[in-house]
Structure formats: structure tokens, C-alpha cells
């Protein structure tokens, strides 16, 4: 089944929510720290870019399945995800530890 066509509006809202998390919450960027937060059960949501290598993507999804944490496949590559985080570098996967003021945890995993 083809994934639900992400309309422009929901994509922008994800970006907005991510920006709010960057400003007010706790997060960590990068594969190594994502696994670390999953192991220590600190992660609340994982976001993976669409050009993440499939083996790495499966590994993160498996860890998240064990930890019962939602995974969101970002509609964009690592360049876009880095930009969405407000960074000037590429981000392939990130982990949200504390969403702060954002409601990204409540809205996203149900949508999947």
C-alpha cells in the first residue's frame, strides 16, 4: 500500500512542530545518539529522513519496536530534515526526548 500522500499543509505543520521542539524541547540528532536514547528509553519519537540507508532505517525501526516508541518517516531527505531542524548540516535521524511546548508526540504517531 502506498503511503498516504502527504499534503503540503501537513508537511508544513510537521516542520512547524519540529521547529517548536528545537526551540523549547530536548532532542538529539544523529544515528549513534538515537540508538543511545532508545536503549535508555528516553526517546519519545524518532524521525528518519527518506534517504536514510535501508539497513540503518530497519535497525532504528526495530529498536523503536522493542522500546515501543513511534517512528516518523520524514517526507524529505537528510538535507531537508537538517533544514527543518534549523541546522546547517544534514540530519538523517533524530530523536525527540522532551517535546517542550510542541504537540508533535500527540499528533504524529496516530497519523502513521
Amino acid at each position, binding site marked *: 500500500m502506498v503511503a498516504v500522500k502527504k499534503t503540503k499543509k501537513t508537511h508544513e505543520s510537521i516542520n512547524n512542530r519540529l521547529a517548536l521542539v528545537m526551540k523549547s524541547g530536548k532532542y538529539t540528532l544523529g544515528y549513534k545518539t538515537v540508538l543511545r536514547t532508545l536503549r*535508555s*528509553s528516553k526517546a519519545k519519537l524518532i524521525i528518519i529522513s527518506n534517504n536514510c540507508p535501508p539497513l540503518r532505517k530497519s535497525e532504528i525501526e526495530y529498536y523503536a519496536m522493542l522500546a515501543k516508541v513511534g517512528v516518523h518517516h520524514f517526507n524529505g531527505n537528510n538535507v531537508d530534515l537538517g533544514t527543518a531542524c534549523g541546522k546547517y548540516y544534514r540530519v538523517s535521524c533524530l530523536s525527540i526526548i522532551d517535546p517542550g511546548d510542541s504537540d508533535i508526540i500527540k499528533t504524529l504517531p496516530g497519523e502513521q
Partner: protein
Amino acid sequence: MVKFLKPNKAVIVLQGRYAGRKAVIIRSFDEGTRDRPYGHCLVAGIAKYPKKVIRKDSAKKTAKKSRVKAFVKLVNYTHIMPTRYTLDVDLKDVVNLEALQSRDKKVTAAKEVKARLEERFKTGKNRWFFTKLRF
């Protein structure tokens, strides 16, 4: 948000001499210790898997093929891959930190683990754990 690196979890060792071998977590140290300031766990695993037993094997051959060589090790969390499987054998009393202090204590601990794993293999349960991971 659920801790999964708990005792009795089956894991696969990824690095070192035992890379690719299946093991079971006996005790986990999430915060680390003074000597190992990182998350690690004490695992007991299979160094040599039991061979495939077929119906026409004699009793002597079955006994020889069902042997297991075990190991006991402290591994970093980053060097193991957790799985969804668990293996509940009671190894807490025989595998503990002081068993790793000297070579002969480690050997006796491994022998005890070998005995317990062999009897578990002979009952036919946890078949996944005793099959070699092909890669």
C-alpha cells in the same frame, strides 16, 4: 519508552571474537561502573552452536552433536543487537561479576552455563536461540 535491555533478553553480539553469536543478558549495568563508564551488560552466550541432529543418528552421535560451548562476557550496549526473543534460564547464581575475575573462575562459570544450555537445547524449546545466525 520501554526499557528492553533487561535480563533474559536474547541478543546478538556484534563485535569481537564472538561476533554473530547469540547470547542472553544476565545482568545489565545501564549507568556503567567506575571501570566501565558506559552502559554494558553481562551476557552468557553460545561460542559453538550444537550441530544439526537427524533422525538416523545413533544415541552416541546425538549426544556428541548436541554439545554446546558457552562463553561469559561483559559487553558494551553498542556492541550488541537486541532481539525480540527472550530466554529464561536461571543463570544468575552461576554467572556473576566475580566469576569474571580470574581465568579458572570464568571457565567453571562457562562450564555451568554449558550444562544448563545443553539441557535447554535437549528439551527442544527456544529453538531460535540454538540455531546459528547465517550471515
